[in-house]
């Protein structure tokens, strides 16, 4: 699996939250992050936004939104990518502070 997993299609949803604080963000992030089907997650209780990257084949978008429903999520954007893309985007040469996207 270790080679084929790189081709796996995953979905990234960027979100805005209507009802979130630092504590609820942290608790919810941990809850979802434990799930093997979630590849990356960040919920910011201060900025009231965040994103989840997950395996859409195994975990539907509705399930993710349902898990986040207490935080009143609103989808800002969606992007499909592969695990290989996620790995590449994580490389340190793509994340030099001051030159990063976010």
């Amino acid at each position: 699996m270790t080679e084929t997993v790189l081709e796996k299609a995953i979905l990234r949803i960027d979100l805005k939250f209507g009802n979130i604080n630092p504590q609820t963000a942290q608790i919810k992030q941990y809850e979802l992050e434990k799930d093997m089907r979630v590849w990356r997650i960040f919920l910011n209780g201060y900025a009231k936004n965040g994103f989840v990257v997950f395996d859409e084949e195994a975990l539907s978008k509705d399930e993710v939104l349902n898990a986040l429903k207490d935080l009143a999520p609103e989808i800002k954007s969606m992007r499909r990518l592969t695990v290989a893309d996620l790995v590449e985007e994580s490389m340190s040469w793509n994340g030099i502070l001051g030159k990063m996207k976010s």
Partner: protein
Amino acid sequence: MAEVVGEIPSGEKEFAESAKKIRDIVEFPEISEDEFYEGLKRASRGYGGKLPHRTYSLCPETRRVVPALVWENGGKVWITKKCPEGMITDLYYEDVELYYRFKRWLWGEKEIYSANVENSGVNCPLDCGMCPRHSSHTSLLNIVLTNRCNLSCWYCFFYAKEGQPIYEPTLEQIRTMLRNAKKEHPIGANAVQLTGGEPTLRDDLIEIIKIAREEGYDHVQLNTDGIKLAFEPELVKKIREAGTNTLYMSYDGMTPQTNWKNHWEVPLILENVRKAGGPGIVLVPTTIRNVNDHELGAIINFGLNHLDIIRGVNFQPLSQVGRVPTKERQRFRITIPGAIKRIEEQTNGVIARDDWYPIPIAGHIARFFEAFTGSRYYMTSHFACGAATYIFLDREEKRVTPIPRFIDVEGFVEFLDEKAEEIEQWGSMGKLKKLKLGAEIFMKFKSFYDEKYAPKGLSVLDLIKNAFMHGNYDALGKFHENSLFLGMMHFMDEYNYDVERVERCVIHYAMPDGRIVPFCTFNVIPELYRDKVQAQFSYTWDEWRALHPGWDYKGDKYFRSREFVEKMKKSDLYRKTYVDIEDYFGLNRE
């Protein structure tokens, strides 16, 4: 106890036997909820503040990140947190004076300006990766090569049990992980530890070592139990030739009971390393109160007796994995000052408390060398994470001397700090200026050096002269031949977890999903890091067997036979290794 032989070593019976005798217990102090919250109010904040100090910790059950109080009581430093499951206190540091002495050398600068995850770190340590909040670059990168293991340690949750998925990154993934850490900005990783499971189980290990070299790593170390190296001398040679600098070898004590992992195999391992001309060995004793903390001096003595191949001893005070009842924590918890104290007692004061320095003191030395040579080698961990010293052996006099006995280390480092500041203000430095400065440092060094106490056969002054005046570091080899590195590295667990320490961690794991994670998040929160990500990238049992048709799970395991142990007991090699050795600390004198 009688040796446990004729089975795959697991250590369960030996540990139970070792833990029977309770020599001392850590009494945790009482603190009420009111006192805790009052303490938090008046506590200092920010790295390096005085005690009581406010930090964040992790709840063992709920995994919430909660405020924690680092405070003093009875000459010791404690960490207390209020978790949903109740108040939890644990020992943070066994000696408040040493805490303050080490704190003086903290390194507060941020040394990394690249990140692997898109987040701000507000949920630290639940979204590691590394994030922009992290302060230290990777000094030592760990890459897990496999979760297969030849032993079956009873406490280990990590190795693949029969039928469980197997994690083994491909060569391409390993290269990517190496490159990722190498390209950290502005200082890339330069040292890598290949670990497991048991990394020697991989058939392509030699190729992996070569890849690490190709990717520009100057230091490659292999974290191993050494078992395969005991029986495959050719493998030792190949490992050395491929570019391995160090075997970072588990070595928990001097008896088959305390060192059940490889006591019987160590004589063969040392012999094979000698024949192969390396790599140098660093012994790694996991140090546990009431289990093997009475053997620390003897382990150092053992290292000194095999100084031709043993380069160091790096003690690792126990990190208590998983949920641990208070009574067990009181029984087994030891911290860096506790291990240092025992070493002082067990070496009859030869290696004393004041002979140790915190790891970040190296940051101050590196600052000077960066200014002086232009190279960048920082070591910027939290001051409570580690300690180190060097001891020198005068073989003729049979005398052991720690480095601070003949060099005023603190004075010299302060002087280098001043010089670094001076050079940084110059902007650039011509050859002549550099030569003059080198000469000045050499002359000044003499005032920090006391020849009377220096070990014979080691010309420290020549070494310093070559390094500072001629830029020649070859003489450092001589330094290593006569010296033994002693280190301490205390990895954290759920109970003594300090987020401020994690933020400054310098020992990281590369994960195949592109993240680089501090040691104490990778292993302490395995459900988010180690176990989860490795499971995402694992082969199912069936996939693995299909890829490796001849492979047999039991074939990976080491079976220690009674015949082998009997043969070792009677061998000259065993005697030479353990029995007919010098007693440099008067350990056996009445």
